[in-house]
Protein backbone atom coordinates (compact mmCIF):
# COMPACT_ATOMS: atom_id res chain seq x y z
CA UNK A 1 0.00 0.00 0.00
CA UNK A 2 0.97 3.59 -0.55
CA UNK A 3 1.74 5.75 2.49
CA UNK A 4 1.70 9.56 2.29
CA UNK A 5 3.12 11.91 4.91
CA UNK A 6 2.35 15.60 5.31
CA UNK A 7 3.77 18.61 7.21
CA UNK A 8 6.09 17.67 10.09
CA UNK A 9 5.47 13.96 9.63
CA UNK A 10 6.86 14.28 6.09
CA UNK A 11 9.86 16.21 7.38
CA UNK A 12 10.58 13.73 10.17
CA UNK A 13 10.22 10.61 8.00
CA UNK A 14 12.21 12.34 5.24
CA UNK A 15 9.78 11.12 2.58
CA UNK A 16 6.54 12.46 1.09
CA UNK A 17 5.42 8.95 0.18
CA UNK A 18 6.51 5.35 0.18
CA UNK A 19 5.20 1.95 -0.85
CA UNK A 20 5.07 -0.64 1.94
CA UNK A 21 3.89 -4.22 2.36
CA UNK A 22 3.07 -4.70 6.04
CA UNK A 23 2.54 -8.24 7.41
CA UNK A 24 -1.01 -9.60 7.72
CA UNK A 25 -1.25 -8.92 11.46
CA UNK A 26 -1.16 -5.17 10.71
CA UNK A 27 -4.94 -4.76 10.52
CA UNK A 28 -5.74 -1.22 11.64
CA UNK A 29 -4.41 2.32 11.27
CA UNK A 30 -2.98 2.15 14.80
CA UNK A 31 -1.25 -1.17 13.96
CA UNK A 32 0.25 0.40 10.85
CA UNK A 33 1.54 3.46 12.74
CA UNK A 34 3.22 1.14 15.29
CA UNK A 35 4.70 -1.03 12.53
CA UNK A 36 6.01 2.00 10.62
CA UNK A 37 7.49 3.46 13.83
CA UNK A 38 9.53 0.26 14.19
CA UNK A 39 11.14 0.56 10.76
CA UNK A 40 13.92 3.05 11.58
CA UNK A 41 14.81 6.09 13.66
CA UNK A 42 13.18 8.59 11.30
CA UNK A 43 9.85 6.77 11.39
CA UNK A 44 10.12 6.33 15.16
CA UNK A 45 10.63 10.10 15.51
CA UNK A 46 7.62 10.86 13.27
CA UNK A 47 5.33 8.61 15.30
CA UNK A 48 6.82 9.25 18.76
CA UNK A 49 3.63 11.03 19.86
CA UNK A 50 1.17 8.78 18.03
CA UNK A 51 -1.85 10.26 19.84
CA UNK A 52 -1.59 13.53 17.88
CA UNK A 53 -1.14 11.90 14.46
CA UNK A 54 -4.25 11.90 12.24
CA UNK A 55 -4.91 9.51 9.37
CA UNK A 56 -6.92 9.23 6.20
CA UNK A 57 -7.72 6.04 4.27
CA UNK A 58 -8.27 6.52 0.55
CA UNK A 59 -8.68 10.28 1.20
CA UNK A 60 -11.20 10.07 4.04
CA UNK A 61 -10.54 10.91 7.68
CA UNK A 62 -10.55 7.85 9.95
CA UNK A 63 -9.99 6.90 13.58
CA UNK A 64 -7.00 4.80 14.71
CA UNK A 65 -9.13 1.63 14.94
CA UNK A 66 -10.15 1.81 11.25
CA UNK A 67 -9.51 -1.37 9.25
CA UNK A 68 -6.94 -1.37 6.46
CA UNK A 69 -8.82 -4.04 4.49
CA UNK A 70 -8.95 -3.13 0.80
CA UNK A 71 -7.22 0.22 1.36
CA UNK A 72 -4.83 1.51 -1.32
CA UNK A 73 -3.67 4.85 0.08
CA UNK A 74 -2.98 5.74 3.72
CA UNK A 75 -2.03 9.28 4.75
CA UNK A 76 -0.58 10.37 8.10
CA UNK A 77 -0.53 14.04 9.13
CA UNK A 78 -0.76 16.42 12.09
CA UNK A 79 -4.01 18.19 13.04
CA UNK A 80 -5.01 20.48 10.19
CA UNK A 81 -4.39 24.24 10.20
CA UNK A 82 -5.96 25.49 6.96
CA UNK A 83 -8.52 28.18 6.41
Amino acid at each position, binding site marked *: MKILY*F*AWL*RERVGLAEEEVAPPAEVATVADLARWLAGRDEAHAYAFENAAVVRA*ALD*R*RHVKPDASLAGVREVAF*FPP*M*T*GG
Partner: protein
Amino acid sequence: MFSVRIQEAPFDAAAEAARLAQGRTDVGGIVTFTGLCRADAGADGMGLAALTLEHYPGMAEEEIERHVAEARARWPLLGAIVVHRHGRLVPGDPIVFVATASAHRAAAFAAAEFLMDWLKTSAPFWKKEERADGADAGGWVEAKASDDAAADRWARD
Protein backbone atom coordinates in the same frame (compact mmCIF):
# COMPACT_ATOMS: atom_id res chain seq x y z
CA MET B 1 -23.29 27.11 -9.20
CA PHE B 2 -21.37 25.02 -6.70
CA SER B 3 -17.59 25.07 -7.00
CA VAL B 4 -14.55 24.03 -4.93
CA ARG B 5 -11.07 24.97 -6.10
CA ILE B 6 -7.59 24.57 -4.66
CA GLN B 7 -5.07 26.82 -6.36
CA GLU B 8 -1.75 28.57 -5.93
CA ALA B 9 -2.86 31.72 -7.78
CA PRO B 10 -4.64 34.63 -6.09
CA PHE B 11 -8.41 34.98 -6.47
CA ASP B 12 -10.72 37.93 -7.09
CA ALA B 13 -13.31 37.83 -4.30
CA ALA B 14 -15.72 40.25 -6.00
CA ALA B 15 -15.62 38.36 -9.29
CA GLU B 16 -16.14 35.02 -7.51
CA ALA B 17 -19.17 36.35 -5.62
CA ALA B 18 -20.66 37.84 -8.79
CA ARG B 19 -20.66 34.40 -10.42
CA LEU B 20 -23.21 33.20 -7.86
CA ALA B 21 -25.93 35.54 -9.12
CA GLN B 22 -24.93 35.64 -12.76
CA GLY B 23 -27.83 34.90 -15.12
CA ARG B 24 -30.42 34.30 -12.38
CA THR B 25 -32.88 36.35 -10.33
CA ASP B 26 -33.79 33.96 -7.52
CA VAL B 27 -30.73 34.75 -5.36
CA GLY B 28 -31.73 37.09 -2.53
CA GLY B 29 -28.44 37.21 -0.67
CA ILE B 30 -24.76 36.33 -1.01
CA VAL B 31 -22.50 36.01 2.03
CA THR B 32 -18.75 36.09 1.41
CA PHE B 33 -15.80 35.46 3.69
CA THR B 34 -12.18 36.11 2.72
CA GLY B 35 -9.41 34.87 5.00
CA LEU B 36 -6.12 36.78 4.82
CA CYS B 37 -2.56 36.02 5.86
CA ARG B 38 -2.10 38.09 9.04
CA ALA B 39 1.19 39.62 10.17
CA ASP B 40 0.63 39.51 13.92
CA ALA B 41 3.47 38.81 16.31
CA GLY B 42 4.14 35.19 17.19
CA ALA B 43 4.88 33.75 20.62
CA ASP B 44 8.41 35.18 20.40
CA GLY B 45 7.14 38.69 19.64
CA MET B 46 8.62 38.69 16.14
CA GLY B 47 6.33 39.26 13.19
CA LEU B 48 5.41 36.82 10.48
CA ALA B 49 7.25 37.12 7.15
CA ALA B 50 5.35 34.43 5.23
CA LEU B 51 3.21 31.33 5.48
CA THR B 52 3.64 28.25 3.35
CA LEU B 53 0.50 26.19 2.95
CA GLU B 54 0.92 22.49 2.25
CA HIS B 55 -2.10 20.43 1.21
CA TYR B 56 -3.14 16.90 0.33
CA PRO B 57 -4.03 17.13 -3.37
CA GLY B 58 -7.20 15.25 -4.17
CA MET B 59 -8.35 14.85 -0.60
CA ALA B 60 -8.46 18.62 -0.02
CA GLU B 61 -11.02 19.08 -2.82
CA GLU B 62 -12.98 15.97 -1.85
CA GLU B 63 -13.15 16.86 1.84
CA ILE B 64 -14.41 20.39 1.12
CA GLU B 65 -16.90 19.01 -1.42
CA ARG B 66 -18.27 16.65 1.25
CA HIS B 67 -18.91 19.64 3.50
CA VAL B 68 -20.50 21.63 0.68
CA ALA B 69 -22.81 18.65 0.11
CA GLU B 70 -23.69 18.61 3.82
CA ALA B 71 -24.34 22.36 3.77
CA ARG B 72 -26.71 21.88 0.83
CA ALA B 73 -28.55 19.19 2.77
CA ARG B 74 -28.94 21.48 5.80
CA TRP B 75 -29.78 24.82 4.19
CA PRO B 76 -31.64 25.85 0.99
CA LEU B 77 -28.54 27.07 -0.85
CA LEU B 78 -28.66 28.31 -4.44
CA GLY B 79 -24.88 28.31 -4.78
CA ALA B 80 -21.55 28.06 -2.98
CA ILE B 81 -17.96 28.75 -3.96
CA VAL B 82 -14.91 27.74 -1.94
CA VAL B 83 -11.39 28.69 -3.05
CA HIS B 84 -8.38 27.71 -0.92
CA ARG B 85 -4.84 28.65 -1.86
CA HIS B 86 -1.62 26.73 -1.27
CA GLY B 87 2.04 27.68 -1.58
CA ARG B 88 3.89 30.64 -0.08
CA LEU B 89 1.81 33.62 1.04
CA VAL B 90 2.85 36.89 2.66
CA PRO B 91 0.87 39.07 5.10
CA GLY B 92 -2.06 40.71 3.34
CA ASP B 93 -2.44 37.91 0.79
CA PRO B 94 -5.86 36.26 0.56
CA ILE B 95 -5.76 32.58 1.62
CA VAL B 96 -9.32 31.33 1.55
CA PHE B 97 -12.66 32.40 0.12
CA VAL B 98 -16.13 31.12 0.93
CA ALA B 99 -19.31 32.47 -0.65
CA THR B 100 -22.83 31.16 -0.24
CA ALA B 101 -26.01 32.23 -2.01
CA SER B 102 -29.58 31.72 -0.94
CA ALA B 103 -33.02 33.26 -1.35
CA HIS B 104 -32.84 34.60 2.20
CA ARG B 105 -29.91 35.72 4.32
CA ALA B 106 -30.16 33.31 7.26
CA ALA B 107 -29.23 30.23 5.21
CA ALA B 108 -26.37 32.02 3.47
CA PHE B 109 -24.87 33.31 6.74
CA ALA B 110 -25.18 29.95 8.50
CA ALA B 111 -23.79 27.92 5.61
CA ALA B 112 -20.80 30.24 5.14
CA GLU B 113 -19.90 29.95 8.82
CA PHE B 114 -20.43 26.18 8.76
CA LEU B 115 -18.12 25.80 5.75
CA MET B 116 -15.38 27.98 7.28
CA ASP B 117 -15.53 26.16 10.63
CA TRP B 118 -15.11 22.78 8.91
CA LEU B 119 -12.40 24.10 6.59
CA LYS B 120 -10.27 25.04 9.60
CA THR B 121 -10.44 21.62 11.22
CA SER B 122 -10.95 19.01 8.52
CA ALA B 123 -9.63 20.25 5.18
CA PRO B 124 -6.12 18.76 4.82
CA PHE B 125 -4.00 21.93 4.83
CA TRP B 126 -1.02 22.74 7.06
CA LYS B 127 0.57 26.15 7.62
CA LYS B 128 4.28 26.66 8.18
CA GLU B 129 5.51 30.05 9.38
CA GLU B 130 8.60 32.03 8.44
CA ARG B 131 9.44 34.65 11.05
CA ALA B 132 10.45 38.20 10.07
CA ASP B 133 13.80 37.81 11.87
CA GLY B 134 14.68 34.80 9.73
CA ALA B 135 14.46 32.36 12.64
CA ASP B 136 13.03 28.95 11.82
CA ALA B 137 11.82 27.32 14.98
CA GLY B 138 10.31 24.34 13.21
CA GLY B 139 7.59 26.62 12.05
CA TRP B 140 4.47 24.43 11.82
CA VAL B 141 1.38 26.17 13.12
CA GLU B 142 -0.39 24.24 15.88
CA ALA B 143 -4.08 23.47 15.64
CA LYS B 144 -6.28 25.46 18.02
CA ALA B 145 -8.80 23.91 20.39
CA SER B 146 -11.07 26.91 19.70
CA ASP B 147 -11.28 25.85 16.04
CA ASP B 148 -12.30 22.31 17.04
CA ALA B 149 -14.95 23.77 19.33
CA ALA B 150 -16.25 25.99 16.52
CA ALA B 151 -16.64 23.00 14.20
CA ASP B 152 -18.17 20.83 16.94
CA ARG B 153 -21.02 23.32 17.32
CA TRP B 154 -22.41 22.02 14.04
CA ALA B 155 -22.37 18.35 15.02
CA ARG B 156 -25.75 16.65 14.96
CA ASP B 157 -26.74 13.50 16.77
